[in-house]
């Protein structure tokens, strides 16, 4: 991981809600894998004067990499960027998702948040013929999925977070990756884990993962503001995460 500069090469509006930025990135970022993220910050034109508001970096999950060095980021359409803007990037942050070798069916869950942290895996999984189902819960149900690959099955959960054939979907899935509103992540993850435990005899290790999106002040393991208590050990979200096995998490 290092600090590098990136350009905004192009900005595309993908739908009413979202825009995608194509960043021309330094080669240290061209090997980013699904599960890893960037900490981004705008740079002043003259490089000498720094602006300190906003103060901390933004956590961005790439959703695509193409043409060798163009990383795509999906952001709310409300945020204002211009092509040609220069960014400072710290990354890659965290570890790639650890997929099972014999992965055939994967379930993705977005609860009260954009599914952006889960999108980078889609092209490669679909190429490997993995079946992908995405469940949108709570406010995530308003997420417009028209720009996602047609092969991804989309399910909108009920208000109680359940959906039709839920027992079947959960049994069918070899692995589950969930993203939740970073404001109250632990509670949301606990809810999801409870749902699973109610619908499956057993939630094994390496089955259910939560992707953590809490604020990362440093992103390099220095500040220890991102420590999570996992069964048996303290883990750093920015170094050991960003995804953790939900069954190992101490939910307090």
């Amino acid at each position, binding site marked *: 991981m290092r*600090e590098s500069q990136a*350009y905004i090469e192009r900005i595309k509006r993908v739908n009413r809600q979202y825009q995608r930025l194509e960043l*021309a990135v330094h080669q240290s970022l061209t090997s980013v894998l699904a599960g890893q993220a960037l900490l981004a910050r705008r740079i002043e034109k003259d490089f000498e004067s720094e602006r*300190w508001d906003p103060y901390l970096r933004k956590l961005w999950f790439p959703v695509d990499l193409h*043409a060798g*060095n163009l990383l795509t980021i999906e952001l709310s359409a409300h945020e204002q960027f211009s092509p040609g803007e220069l960014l400072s990037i710290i990354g890659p942050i965290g570890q790639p998702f650890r997929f099972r070798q014999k992965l055939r069916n994967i379930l993705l869950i977005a609860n009260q948040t954009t599914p952006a942290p889960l999108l980078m895996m889609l092209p490669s999984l679909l190429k490997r013929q993995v079946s992908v189902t995405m469940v949108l819960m709570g406010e995530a149900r308003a997420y417009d999925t028209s720009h996602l690959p047609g092969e991804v099955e989309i399910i909108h959960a009920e208000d109680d977070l359940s959906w039709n054939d839920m027992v079947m979907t959960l049994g069918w899935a070899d692995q589950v990756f969930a993203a939740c509103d970073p404001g109250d992540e632990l509670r949301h993850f606990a809810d999801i884990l409870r749902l699973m435990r109610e619908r499956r005899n057993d939630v094994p290790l390496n089955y259910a993962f939560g992707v953590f999106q809490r604020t990362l002040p*440093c992103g390099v393991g*220095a500040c220890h503001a991102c420590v999570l208590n996992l069964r048996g050990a303290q883990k750093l979200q920015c170094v050991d995460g960003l995804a953790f096995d939900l069954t190992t998490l101490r939910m307090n």
Partner: protein
Amino acid sequence: MAIEITRSRKYSLVVSTPVMPAAGAFGFADSYRAMIDYEKLGALVTNPVTIDAWNPAAGTRTVPLDAGLLLHTGLPNPGLRKVIRRYRKTWSNLPIPVILHLAGTSVQHVSQAVNLLDEVDEVAAVELGLSDDLTEGEALALVCAASKLEKPLLVRLPFYECYQLALPAAEAGADALVLTAAPRGTARDAHSGRLVSGRIYGPLIKPMILRLVGRLRREVAAEVPIIGCGGIHSPQDARDYIDAGAIAVQVDTATWAQPKMLERISRDLGGWIATRRKDALLDEWNPDMGHTEALQRRAPAPRANDLGK
């Protein structure tokens, strides 16, 4: 350069640049090795360490503020013995002295820590962190206990109590005063809707602590160096502290926002940037310029393919 940043005694701490990270900002050892040239820093100050392991704080840990943030980590650390075991080797390979920050909890704990640390050659000096809301007596007892150390002892004072504690701490055996820890404050966490407390960081802290440094430099005995710490975000900020009487500075959360700023400040005060060739590229001058920028200056309108390869 060789700058003695603690009182001249049998033991004193000499650094080659009067710039170092503040405790809590930089990790325990080499978190920033991929981004910052440690050789350009004066010293490494570790995250706060306690005798027993401490757990992270429950609840909200960061609240963003205008040009700043509130932070409450609870100082998670695996306890002094584990910290020494885990990082000793790395410390010995660092090109700069290591200052271990010891959170001052009780006299008994501090004495225990002093005994342990005297045996650890990889630790060049100890910085004792005094918590807020200690009485003057309690604070002095901690400093006294820590001054048994056979190494230089820096004492970091809390913000609000720093006037009250500075002179007594110097008399009780501090070899340098670090002014100050970040001030405590309270802010509303937008997610939970609750008022949460923690420490306040950001550039606006600097003018307040700079004034404290300027005034206390006139009051504290001249042989006790003062190290300025608070809101430093640029080389000029650091120079302001030196002008106000500090012998050295500590840079805190600026490092998180812009990691190379610490090195830039350190190069500046360390005299590594003395002249700049006319027309030098920005990345030849500023350590925090990646080569992307250099390329941009050579070819004003780069295409994707020109970059990053």
